[in-house]
Structures are given as C-alpha cells and as structure tokens.
C-alpha cells in the first residue's frame, strides 16, 4: 500500500489532479512500469514491429466488429442479406466490412510473422516460457475466433467450411458424434449453429483473447523483452539500475512503432481500397453465393490462414499411417538399443510404441475388433490439432546453446528455411483441390513440420555455435 502523498501548494492543476488520482489508483505507476520506464533492448529490428501491429489489428477488429454487430442479423434467413445491406445501405458500411475482413487476414499475417520472430531469436527460451505459452494460447483463440466469424456471412464457403470442420470433431473416439452435435446444436450446420457461433465470435472468444493479451504483456514486462542477439540486457546495468543496452519504451519505441504502424496501414489500406478480395484469398468468391444446405460446392477450401493445417489433415491417409508406423518402430528401436535409458523407461517406450501402432491399425489384420485401431480421419484430426499444440512445448524442445539464430551454426538457418518453405507449400496445397501429387507433397511437408519440432532436442544442439556477445549489436542511426 502506497503512502498518501500531498501535492506541493504551488503545483499546477494538472499535477494536483495526478496526485489526487495516484493516491487512489496507480495510474502513474502503471504508466511508468509498462511504458515510460520499461526498458527495452535498443537493437530491435524489423521483426519487432509485429507485436505492436498485432495489438493494432486487435483494436481494429474490435472497433469495426462493434459497428458490424449493429447492422448484422444472426439469422440463417437474414444473415447473407444483412451483410449486403452493410455493403450497400449502411453509410461507410463497405469500408467497415472490408476493414474487418481484411483485418482477419492481416491478423494472421502479423501473428505468423510475430511467432516466426520468436522462433528465430529464441524468445520462447528461459525465462520467457510463459510469454510464449500465453502467445500460443492467443494463436489458438484467434483460430477459434476466425473460424466462427467466417460462418457469419452465411455464404456457401462459410457454410460448408463450418460443416467440414465441425464434422472433424465427430472423429473423436466415443464422444465424437455427440460433441459435434453439441457444437452445431443441430444435426447439420443451421440457424442454431449460426447463433451460437455469433455469440462466441462477438463476446466469448474476444473476452478470452483480451485476457490472454493482458497476460502475454504482463509476463513480457516482468521478464523483459528478448532481442535479435538473444543477450540478456538485464545482466549489465548502470549505477541507477537501468540496463546499459535498454532504452525507455516511451518515447523511443512508441515513435518507432508509429513508423511501423504507418507503413502497415499503407499496405492494409491498399488492400482494403484496391483489392479487398485479394484474388479470392481474403474473401472467397464462392462466399458471394448464399449458403445452400442442399448444394455442396465442388471444392471446399478453408481461408488461407488455416490451409497448412488443412493440408496436414488431408495428407493423413492410410499410406501416411503406414509411413508413420515405420517411423515409430524405427524410433522405438533406436531409443531402446542406443538410448541411455533405464530398463523401466525402455519398457515404457516399447509399450507406448505398441499402443501407437495398434492405434494406427497395424494389427488390424488379426481381425480382432479391439485391435482395429482408429481410422485415418481420426489421426488426421490428431495431427492437425497436434501441429498447433506442439508449439506450446517449444521452450522445452529447443536445446540450442545460443538463443538467437545469429549465433547458431549456419546450417540451422537452412533447417529453418526448409521448415518455412514447407509450411508455405502446405498452405498453398491446402487452398487447392486435392490431387494425388499434391497429397504426396503434403505428406512430406507434414513429416517435415513434425520432424522439425520433434527432433529439435537433438538437432538444435549440434554444430558450431558462435559466442554470444555481452552487449547487443547496435549501429546508431
């Protein structure tokens, strides 16, 4: 509890007012802790714009969302028309709607780049594990938010996309069909589904998102920001206890981010005003046809930001399960024969591998119903979910002695490059109609995606690391 402070008699009215407030609410304290006296490393580069940009997009989505909610009708009979009403009859409605639809895609672009920054500079490493985990939870919530929001325009792609994704939950063993029913509130995607998705989209998930964003920033400001060198700036401080390589967030990074924001808004506006459909990637052409439960479109593709995961789902065929079985056997044999584990752990590995093989249906030839395992669709859902869940474990998968890519062996950059390349390829293939050739590439991409993370404890410590400097690299402007 802070002591009560008296303002000097000759203080200005503004000063007296702040003293009055500070005696009742920690306004100045919060401002200083999080902005004016939050010391950030002075060597932030291009990649460090995306955190503040993600915040900006969140605000854009909330504000435009509020205005859209004033005119939108969450009713299967009216929803499509109400969006067109916004586009035509609501003053500046078209602008608000395009900001929101472009904002959804911009959010994912910014967040993907923000996550990639964390990955290459080791921002997930000790002591920032919780910053990373809160971030992953934000990503997961964002996916839920985007998925439910996409149903609301009630076009063909909204409808059938939701139908496909909700049906995935039906692949969960035992409770699946009931779970899917609970999500839809009906046996097919219908008015009931639209209403509950609307409710989740406009209040439930945004509340969770805001809470997580607050936690993400509080955790970050507790431990301090990482930087492109991965050096801890708190290790070297001046006489006043300020990090030698730190500068106050305000005004240095507020003005820096203002520049980032202006460039971002320029690109964002160029899309809104000159290519709001973005070639069918941000607004899918099929979604200008009202939802029709009786007519399935020839090609159903999720919006681009989900396509890498959708590719992994489609890649999981019986052939893929056979490949995975071989990998499981090889890994288990290697761990048992070569690994330095106790006998008990080795038995556990063997049992685990056998269970996994049984799950993949390897023992289906026995004809025993309890050895039939689960079908490829179920494992597709597991891989798709696992691809996001695995991100949460990154702080414990990465064993590199240097946090930042700058001080890691050169070939690590190639590993990151291959990972990013295949992530993009998976994304592209997920947006295309299924093809045999595309499926093989997706299967390879899926193996590379998971291999990148699951083998990280091994490969991330290999090679020649460069010494991390005590002070950050910084060239004065």
């Amino acid at each position, binding site marked *: 509890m802070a002591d009560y402070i008296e303002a000097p008699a000759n203080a200005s009215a503004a000063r007296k007012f702040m003293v009055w407030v500070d005696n009742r609410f920690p306004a100045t304290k919060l401002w200083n802790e999080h902005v004016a006296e939050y010391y950030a490393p002075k060597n932030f580069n291009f990649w460090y714009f995306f955190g503040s940009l993600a915040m900006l997009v969140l605000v854009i989505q909330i504000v435009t969302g509020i205005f859209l909610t004033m005119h939108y009708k969450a009713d299967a009979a009216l929803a499509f028309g109400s969006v067109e009403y916004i586009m*035509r009859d609501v003053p500046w409605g078209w602008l608000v709607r395009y900001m929101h639809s472009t904002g959804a895609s911009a959010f994912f672009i910014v967040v993907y780049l923000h996550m990639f920054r964390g990955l290459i500079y080791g921002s997930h490493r000790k002591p920032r594990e919780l910053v990373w985990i809160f971030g992953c939870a934000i990503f997961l919530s964002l996916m839920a938010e985007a998925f439910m929001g996409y149903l609301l325009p009630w076009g063909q792609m909204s409808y059938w996309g939701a139908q496909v994704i909700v049906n995935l939950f039906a692949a969960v063993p035992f409770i699946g069909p009931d779970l899917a029913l609970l999500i839809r509130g009906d046996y097919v995607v219908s008015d009931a589904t639209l209403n509950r998705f609307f409710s989740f989209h406009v209040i439930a998930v945004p509340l969770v998102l805001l809470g997580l964003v607050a936690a993400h920033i509080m955790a970050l400001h507790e431990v301090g920001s990482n930087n492109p060198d991965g050096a801890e700036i708190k290790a070297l401080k001046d006489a006043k206890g300020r990090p030698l390589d730190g500068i106050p967030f305000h005004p240095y990074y507020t003005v820096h981010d203002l520049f980032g924001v202006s460039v971002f808004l320029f690109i964002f506006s160029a899309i809104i005003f000159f290519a709001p459909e973005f070639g069918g990637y941000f607004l899918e052409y099929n979604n*200008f046809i009202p939802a029709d439960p009786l007519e399935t479109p020839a090609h159903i593709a999720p919006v681009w930001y989900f396509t890498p995961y959708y590719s992994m789902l489609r890649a999981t065929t019986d052939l893929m399960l056979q490949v995975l079985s071989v990998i499981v056997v090889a890994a288990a044999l290697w761990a048992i024969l070569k690994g330095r584990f106790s006998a008990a752990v080795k038995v556990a590995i063997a049992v685990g591998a056998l269970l996994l093989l049984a799950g993949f249906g390897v023992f289906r030839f026995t004809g025993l119903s309890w050895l039939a395992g689960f079908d490829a669709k179920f494992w597709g859902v597991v891989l798709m979910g696992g691809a996001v869940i695995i991100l949460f474990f990154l702080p414990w998968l990465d064993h590199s002695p240097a946090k930042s890519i700058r001080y890691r062996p050169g070939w690590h950059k190639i590993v990151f490059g291959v990972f990013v390349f295949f992530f993009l390829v998976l994304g592209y293939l997920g947006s295309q109609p299924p093809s045999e050739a595309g499926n093989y*590439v997706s299967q390879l991409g899926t193996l590379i995606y998971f291999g990148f993370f699951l083998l990280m404890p091994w490969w991330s410590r290999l090679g020649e690391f460069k010494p991390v400097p005590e002070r950050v690299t910084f060239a004065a402007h």
Partner: protein
Amino acid sequence: MKKLILSLCACLVLLAGAHASEGDIAWDKFPVGRSQDLASLQHGAKLFVNYCLNCHSATHMRYNRMRDIGLTEDQIKKNLVFATEKVGETMKNSFDPKQAKDWFGGVPPDLSVIARSRSAMGQGSGADYLYTYLRSYYRDDTKATGWNNLAFPNVGMPHVLWELQGQRNAKFVEQKDAHDPSKTMHAFAGYEQISPGTMTPLQFDEAVADLVSFMNWMAEPAQNDRLRVGVWVLLFLGLFTLFAWRLNAAYWKDVK
C-alpha cells in the same frame, strides 16, 4: 527417402497438368474500362431490367441506387421500375419458385452479387465469365429449352437475348486427344449463324459488355467510391509515413 524423392518428382510432373479440366472454355476478357463509363452502365441497366429481371431478382439492389450511375429518381421511376411503385424498393420479382423449377429445372439465382461470385482463380473475373457466358449460346435441339451454352454446358436458362444476336449452331469436330491417343475429344470448331439478329455481332458484343458492366457495378455499387477514396487515403498515409519516419529518426539520433 528414395521413395519420398521419387514421389516428390512424380508430384511436380503431375501438378503441372492438374489444372486442365474438360468442359471449360477460356474466358474472354471483359472490357474493363466500361465499368467507369456512365452511358455503358445506363444502357446495361436498361438491358438488365428488361431482359433479366423477368425471371431473376436482385434482392439486395435498390432501384434508386442507380442515381449513382447518373440517373435521376424520375428517370429511374419512368423507365426502369416495372414491378413496384416505390423507387426505394429492391429489385425483387414475383416469379413463383415452384413454377421456375418446373420450367427451368431450378430457381433462377439472385443476381445482386453474381458478378463477384463467378470469379475464379486462374480463369478470370466474374465479369469475364458473364461476358463469355452470355455470348456462348447455341441452338441444341436435344435440350428442353432448345438452347445450350459452351461456358455453362446444359444450362437451364434459354438464350434470352436471342432476338438481338440471332440463332447460331455450334460446330463440333472429333479430334484425337493429344495426351491420350486412344481417346477422341469432342472439340468446338466455331459457330454458324442460322438466322440474323437485330444487332450485328459487334453491336451484340457491345450490348453484352454494357449489361455485364452494369451487373459488375451492381455487385458492389460502392466500388467506384472505394477506388476514389482509396487514392486519397494512400496519399495521406504516404505523407504520414514520411513524417513518422523522420520523427523516429529525430528521436533516435541521440541513442548511441
């Protein structure tokens, strides 16, 4: 690993040929400049209400929105509104869905945003599609309506603009499939005019272009505003970026 590499190579080969599918014809390019041309849009509006609105509706499009293409409310009321008294109404029609189903095998789709929905990645814009589709009708006695269409095979809609274009036959030849010599392809080999229309082929193309430019405008009436406002927004943001850049540099010049 060898298998993976082999399959990866196989994939690249197969991907190359994955896009060509049967029944699709290449879309003609809609003359884009017409979307900005008020006379073209107005002529298109006239064709639209006279030929399309009898069976189709455009339930999100208000008649008086056509003020944006240079018409007065009075002109709209006198020349373009047939189905209702109120110029603020949307373009509904009174076609009974059940009858539509009996006659054409389906309810004619609402046309408000048809131009946007018909775009296809790699093929062209919705306007390109409509411009091609409306000019690809030919006589086909095997069909209930007596009409068929190259861009939309077995289409339910008859050739509504036939009086303007006249009647045409389509000539087909059997060709060897270049990819598979054992198959023959039913290939289109040009039209053959049976009876003349009231328009020359060139006039007809222009009339369809006007109609499509109207439908394209109708799919997003705000599009011309959007482009106009967008230029100013980008000019402002460009200038703002310049100031933000210099402001940033001014603050950071002391950081050593």
